[in-house]
């Protein structure tokens, strides 16, 4: 059950923390469905704040009303899938099941398609035709379409006495309205539903408990009791609270919380999730490469973040060798070059400009992609690091 819950296969019984928004949206859509009133609304919220969840809940509740059920047509569009108006129009046509009207007629042009659809929408009037819900996921991407034709037309329909439509946009961009052209903007009803979680850590913790608790109608009553008790105990545990608090501080996102919880309970790893890290590369590097990185670090210290090229790095490295190279052999230049290229492959360093072809490799300007602290951290962890290398790294000047 928990896995089901966390993997988003099931909608929560009731949206938490966003009851007012839920009510608002439900009311709005209900009016479209029942009264045939055209509307447009935007749901705005950061990623993972439950926009889709909210919408799905609302739709589910809406469809539970009996007379609405057979009454409403839904069109789901996603800005990532329908990348331009042409595809979007085709998709709308498909989802409205208008093909049977079209028959085997091949849709010649985009223009024809648009005219066709507009005519279809114009045909209906407020009372006779079934309301259509247009759900535009990633609404901001639709705003990038040429001329915003689709948006203009959808919103225009929603503002005129044609077939009742409800245009629902989902986006995470707060500035989405600025993307709209002024005449498109004027046609939008400026209803925005913001989904911003303002939970305190206490509420957050309660939510975690709620999420983890088994539903009361669980088959095994005894197990249910034990489980819920243990969850409560767990949530009072200091380390758990710490982990959660840390996560809470970094984001209030429920989706990532779910991921975290899934990790915890199904893999039994109580380890923080900083798994992917560039630093983890460093222990795998050879001493030579490490030396090169240190050299680069020094260079960027000296020149305050200015880019460097291989020749400079090599010189720096040479200097180091000359001064105190007890443990490291003098490598040939081609070998150093090889190591340098390897670093580049690992994207620990990157060329500043994209034009790799023209300039000779040795003089290509590069930048170190690692942070100062990262290098030091990695150096601590590095197994059997030659002490002189370490010293070199710590020393302020080469």
């Amino acid at each position, binding site marked *: 059950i928990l896995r089901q819950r966390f993997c988003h296969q099931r909608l929560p019984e009731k949206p938490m923390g966003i009851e007012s928004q839920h009510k608002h949206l439900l*009311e709005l859509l209900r009016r479209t469905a029942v009264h045939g009133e055209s509307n447009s609304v935007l749901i705005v919220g950061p990623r993972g704040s439950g926009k889709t969840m909210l919408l799905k809940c609302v739709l589910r509740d809406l469809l539970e009303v009996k007379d609405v059920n057979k009454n409403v047509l839904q069109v789901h569009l996603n800005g990532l899938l329908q990348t331009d108006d042409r595809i979007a129009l085709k998709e709308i046509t498909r989802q*409205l099941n208008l093909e049977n009207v079209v028959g085997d007629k091949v849709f010649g042009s985009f*223009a024809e398609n648009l*005219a066709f659809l507009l005519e279809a929408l114009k045909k209906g009037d407020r009372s006779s035709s079934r309301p259509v819900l247009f759900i535009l996921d990633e609404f901001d991407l639709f705003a990038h379409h040429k001329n915003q034709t689709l948006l203009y037309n959808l919103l225009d329909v929603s503002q005129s006495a044609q077939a009742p439509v409800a245009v629902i946009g989902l986006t995470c961009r707060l500035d989405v309205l600025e993307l709209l052209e002024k*005449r498109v903007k004027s046609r939008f009803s400026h209803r925005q539903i913001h989904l911003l*979680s303002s939970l305190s850590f206490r509420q957050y913790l309660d939510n975690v408990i709620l999420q983890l608790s088994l539903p009361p109608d669980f088959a095994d009553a005894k197990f249910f009791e034990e489980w819920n008790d243990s969850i409560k105990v767990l949530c009072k545990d200091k380390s758990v609270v710490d982990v959660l608090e840390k996560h809470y501080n970094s984001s209030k996102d429920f989706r990532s919380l779910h991921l975290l919880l899934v990790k915890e309970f199904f893999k039994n790893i109580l380890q923080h999730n900083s798994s992917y890290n560039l630093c983890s590369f460093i222990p795998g590097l050879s001493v030579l490469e490490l030396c090169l990185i240190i050299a680069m670090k020094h260079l960027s210290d000296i020149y305050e973040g200015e880019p460097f090229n291989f020749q400079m790095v090599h010189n720096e490295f040479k200097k180091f060798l000359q001064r105190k190279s007890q443990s490291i052999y003098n490598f040939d230049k081609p070998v150093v070059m090889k190591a340098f290229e390897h670093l580049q492959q690992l994207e620990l360093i990157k060329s500043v400009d994209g034009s790799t072809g023209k300039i000779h490799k040795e003089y290509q300007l590069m930048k170190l992609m690692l942070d100062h602290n*990262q290098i030091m951290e990695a150096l601590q962890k590095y197994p059997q690091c030659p002490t002189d290398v370490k010293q070199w790294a710590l020393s302020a000047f080469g």
Partner: protein
Amino acid sequence: MVRYFTRLRVRRVYKWDGTPSSFDRKLKTYFFDSLNISVEGQPGMTTVTPGQYVLIEGDNEDNPFVAKLLKFFGDESNQQKKALVQWFVRVCEVPHNKKKLLGRSPHPQEVFYYLGHTCDNEIDAESILNTVQVQYVPVDAPFPEPGIKDTLYVKLSWDTKTFKDLDPALMQDTPVPASTPPRLKPASPCSPPAAALVSLGSVGRKMPTPDPMVMRRAGSVSRTRGPVSASKAGNNEAESVHSAAKLSASKTLSTKRRGSSGVTPGVRKKLQLSIGDSPEKIMSRKDGLCELLDEEVDSEKALVTKLNSSPRSLHHGYSLSPVRSDHRPPNSLGGYPLKPTSIMLDRLSPTALGEQDFSRDMLLGMAPLILEDEVFEAGLPTGTAKTPKKRQATPRRKYFHEKATTPSRRKDSAMTAREPSLGVLAEEDSESSPMQLVVTSSRSKRKSAQLVASRIRKQLNLMGDAQELHSDDGDDDCFTPSKKDLHHSSEEDLEDEEVSKSEETAGKTTRGRLRRASTTPARTPRKPPSKKATPSTPRTPRTPRHATPSIPSRTLPARKPGNVLEEARARLHVSSVPESLPCREQEFQDIYNFVESKVMDGTGGCMYISGVPGTGKTATVHEVIRCLQHASDMDEIPTFRFVEINGMKMTDPHQAYVQILQKLTDQKATADHAAALLEKMFSNPAPKKETTVLLVDELDLLWTRKQNVMYNLFDWPTRRHARLVVLTIANTMDLPERIMINRVASRLGLTRMSFQPYSFKQLQQIITSRLNKVKAFEEDALQLVSRKVAALSGDARRCLDICRRATEICEHSAPQPSSTGLVGMSHVMEALDEMFSSSYITAIRCASVQEQLFLRAVLAEFRRLGLEEATFQQVFVQHRALCRVEGLQPLSVSEGLAVCQRLGACRLLLLEASRLDVLQRVRLNVSQDDVLYALKADRA
């Protein structure tokens, strides 16, 4: 296209045929009888005489104008050749918005008799292209199915506002010339041989598969003539015919058919000669019916007796039909699928009979027909006179048999089935009125199909006006039931019972009305069954080619607004059309005057209207057009056509041509072709032309690099013959100067109008007028809204939306005891906050601790650098320092990046492409003050 071009290139030579027939001294014009048109390079010559229908060269190559020639005249020097014409309007020439007045889908070859006054009746005779067939189809009759290419059909008249049933007299007022077409096209089966009966004959004869209705009607006519003659000539003749009829049922049938077909050519003659010639036919038909239905010889006698006027039974027959008509409406309403099946049932039995008849018919071939004829002749007192006619009829009859076996069979069966009732009806009429009147009424039935009462009067010279009236009555009466009978032939057996039941029904007139009322629903069933079988799905079935898509209609009706607030909300919706447009009176008047003057003068012009969104530009123009259309309906100004295109609703500027053309003429073409056609249409003089008002919304989107679309749009009105008024709408005031090159801008002219944003008073007025006494808002609440919006944008849409939202909020908070049920200040404030408040601050407030920290780090870094931009690396250093200050565990770089990305997704930060990793540059998308404010408030 090519075809038409080549055809146009052919030179035609026009010559007067013969000498001027008359001379008008005042006008110094000669009138001619006919005009010879010879096409160069082609042998043969076409002679056109007044009264004929001709195609006249127009602006549209594919569909030349249709007109009927009235007169030819030329001036003394013979330089000019003129002609007076009566116009007909093609479907595609009827404005779009009027088409729905027709109430049905127009036939592709349908034309309308033009009654408008805006067109010049005088044309240059040299623009005549060719002759064409125009035939009158009675209003209720269906269009002949396989239309011959050059034939057009007239049903209704069109006076630029409404469709009316065409008075057949109009079609007939030049009877003589109508006879000429056959000379030109003797081979075509459509040519009406009998001049006087053009239309009648044509319907009867022209189509190889005439509508059963027509056939039946014709048959019934001849039959109804029966009683008259029967009573005149006595039963003997009838009986003699009976014997003939007994020979074979098929014979009777064929006679019947022949009767129907044969009657038409010679109707007038027969009528004039004596009414007595038809009786045998009628009798025989009756007999045939009896045989078919009852298989009893004796029944004939019964029928005869009935015929010989047993008024009671006749009345029964009559009253039957109302009963049927009562049956009909539920049927037709109850769903189409029912009807076809019932028809099928009905048809089944008759067809079986008909088939038998047919086979026999075929076997016998000509012989029986001739036999019949002879029999008839023998039995007829006036046989000699008639025989030739009948013989003429025979081949035609054969034609029917062979060519249209299935349809005719069906017709036969239908006829047999229908006959009794119809006949009874006719008889009933005859009973109620004097002999002659019977004839009229019976004929009027036919007439209702084709002829006018006046025509009949002429023919018979018998009837007075009163009779005519009567006949008209009969017209209506008889017309409807026949249709109904189609389906109820199977009920024939039940007739008697029904009759007895319905004997006491009300007076004829009411009945007639009843039936007439029911005609409309009953009209559909006459279409072929395939059409009838409309599936009950909500989507209207149409042929895929002309698919006009529609959103399936909802299964439940939309609920009506319940309380005051809902009512107010409905009224406040932008889509609801206001009764009037307040605060735009001046603009309205200006545009109205502009368009009106142009329409009146028949000139063209351009107007540019600008204004920020939501200031009522489009609404005002629409209002103007509505008023103008109303005025033109009132005949105050000439009619005009209104075409609207929207730059946003097309995908490409060049699509504008396609859309204009499609809205003007209903044809589809590619953009280039459409441009060429429009160019031609607007630059060439055309004899009849209405002013076109073209509304171009969102003009700026029609911008192309060469600006040829705009150029054309503004150039057309300047042409002499264009009669085009172009109204353009865009948002920017200086659009002409900004994006148009000189030659385009100069053509646009200086007629500009700018819609100012609404002031708060105006907005208030708008809302008040929209609410229209629905008391839902407090006064100061309204004022607040309008002031706020006026200060920001003056967008009426926004204003209405806010009000709508406020009503919602009010509704939700209704249970509060303090609220009066009206939308008060608090609600409005809330709505305003929702709509206008920047979401950034709340968003920042709700962000997680680390995100807030990151924002602060960004701010700190900016302050340090003095720039508005920093790399992630720099910011991150700050971030770590801040973390330490706050006593939080510093984040790893990857976590920090994740935080940064989240903020970037919300567009609180602007980020570079993420592949730059730690070096990506970060910028704030919000003002620093906002961030500080939000963070500070958060701390507090």
